[in-house]
């Protein structure tokens, strides 16, 4: 046997190759062969798992995997008798094309870009768009997705099967939408990436490691877009910045007991400096003359939080201005409610309570945990502990998120202790 020296593989290389090769083969053969392609790539990975363990990892793992997947696919399609002889030659050309594609390191792989557009096709529901992106581009397994999103594995599998069917029914071939269509299609893609990120980022008892991977996958997809000349819009950069800033706080917002830590009590030494730096550079690239997008504003807010050395040094004035801008551009009750947090820091609890009352009496008021959590914060500041406790109790009832519940209970206990 040869050397048993195993060159250490890059982290997640199987997962990423899976997505790359699926995209490539779907691009070449069309979504109608999706299942056979999935099986072939899975088979290739199993072979790799068996062979690479014994021997060194091949010099070019991508090409190795594609060759094996390709052969497997030829076999299957032949058996299915769906393929005419000419198509076999096409398969052999594929390998060369693929090698050209993968050798362009750092630039977006053309078929993956098209695959992103296919998975985010407007004819698909948001739920389907998310699951297709996670499975076919991200290379996540059903069990991983179910753990991260706290869904039954069976539910994930069923929804993926339905999503695939819909994809095959609606998307005949993979393309990049042309000019006029591109902008609106790109907006959907960005929204899905943003949703992927928020799914991963949501504080829940889901498996934290995988949740982080989903966040990083969302960033990776956006970075792929930003490397393409048609897609590197200011919004894409703003979205990347926003995700980097949020992700930089990933470790700090959950403590060793797995409990939620709010911004005020986070250990800022745990913030990921590299991600913040990356976020800043993309925020610079995102500069626009015209109106900033929602991603721009959210990124800027997150930026202020990341760069404040201490909670007390946060530029609340700056943040409040951003919220005002966001509200002016497009009214949203959630934004109105969240705006009260920086407003409180700038103008104090008394005036913030007036704002809160305005919101409550407005047409968009909805009983929510967030509303009562903010109310509790303001009342605590006024040393109205009884009122604060009553508000927190309502917040506990209204949230279905276990981690939030625990967090509110902890605050309640603290209030009980500080109450004279």
């Amino acid at each position, binding site marked *: *046997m040869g050397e*048993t*020296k*195993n060159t250490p*593989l890059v982290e*997640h*290389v*199987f*997962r990423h*190759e*899976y997505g790359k090769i699926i995209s490539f083969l779907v691009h070449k053969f069309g979504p109608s062969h999706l299942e056979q392609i999935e099986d072939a790539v*899975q088979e290739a*990975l*199993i072979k*790799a*798992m*068996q*062979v*690479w*363990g*014994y*021997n060194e990892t091949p010099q070019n793992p991508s090409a190795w995997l594609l060759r094996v997947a390709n052969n497997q696919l030829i076999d299957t399609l032949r058996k299915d008798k769906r393929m005419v002889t000419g198509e076999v030659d096409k398969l052999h050309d594929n390998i060369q094309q693929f090698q050209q594609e993968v050798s362009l390191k750092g630039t977006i792989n053309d078929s993956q870009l098209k695959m992103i557009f296919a998975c985010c096709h407007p004819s698909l529901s948001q739920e389907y768009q998310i699951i297709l992106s996670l499975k076919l581009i991200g*290379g*996540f*397994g*059903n*069990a*991983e997705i179910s753990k991260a999103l706290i869904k039954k594995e069976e539910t994930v599998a069923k929804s993926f099967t339905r999503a695939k069917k819909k994809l095959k029914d609606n998307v005949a071939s993979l393309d990049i939408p042309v000019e006029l269509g591109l902008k609106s299609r790109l907006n959907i893609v960005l929204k899905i990436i943003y949703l992927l990120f928020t799914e991963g980022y949501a504080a829940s008892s889901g498996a934290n490691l995988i949740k982080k991977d989903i966040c990083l996958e969302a960033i990776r997809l956006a970075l792929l877009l930003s490397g393409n000349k048609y897609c590197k819009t200011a919004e894409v950069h703003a979205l990347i910045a926003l995700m980097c800033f949020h992700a930089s706080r990933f470790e700090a917002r959950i403590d060793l007991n797995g409990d939620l830590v709010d911004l005020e009590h986070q250990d800022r030494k745990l913030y990921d400096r590299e991600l913040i730096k990356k976020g800043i550079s993309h925020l610079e690239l995102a500069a626009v003359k015209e109106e900033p997008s929602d991603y721009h504003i959210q990124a800027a807010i997150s930026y202020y939080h990341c760069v404040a050395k201490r909670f007390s040094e946060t530029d609340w004035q700056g943040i409040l201005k951003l919220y005002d801008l966001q509200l002016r551009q497009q009214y949203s009750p959630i934004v109105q409610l969240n705006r009260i947090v920086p407003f409180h820091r700038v103008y104090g609890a008394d005036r913030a309570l007036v704002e809160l009352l305005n919101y409550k009496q407005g047409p968009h008021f909805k009983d929510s945990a967030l509303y009562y959590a903010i109310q509790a914060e303001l009342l605590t500041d006024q040393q109205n502990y009884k009122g604060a406790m009553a508000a927190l109790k309502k917040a506990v009832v209204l949230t279905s998120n276990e981690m939030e519940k625990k967090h509110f209970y902890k605050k309640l206990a603290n209030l009980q202790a500080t109450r004279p």
Partner: protein
Amino acid sequence: MSNFLFLFRGGDAARVQQSPEEMQAHMQKWGAWMGGLKEHDQLVDGLPLAKEGKVVENAGKVITDGPFAEGSEVVGGYLIVTSKDLNGAVEISKGCPIFEHGGNVEVREIMTMNM
């Protein structure tokens, strides 16, 4: 010291269920396990076997696609290790990652001319 043959059987069903990430992790365990054997000069040889094959009978009068055995009985690969005795070889086999997938290892001493 004697040489021992390890035959790896089964585990296929579990493998098919895995996500790419899990497969990579599993593969790296095999690499680490074999790397360890090599470091201790216990590894002589070994390779995986392809799933497809032929079974030849009656000097080729009957040739069938094989192996026939149930999935759990198909040999997926082999390894030759050195150890002072069978017990030592069994001890070595216990670290094999195949057990994670419900597979097994058959350990057999390889006979030599100078018994």
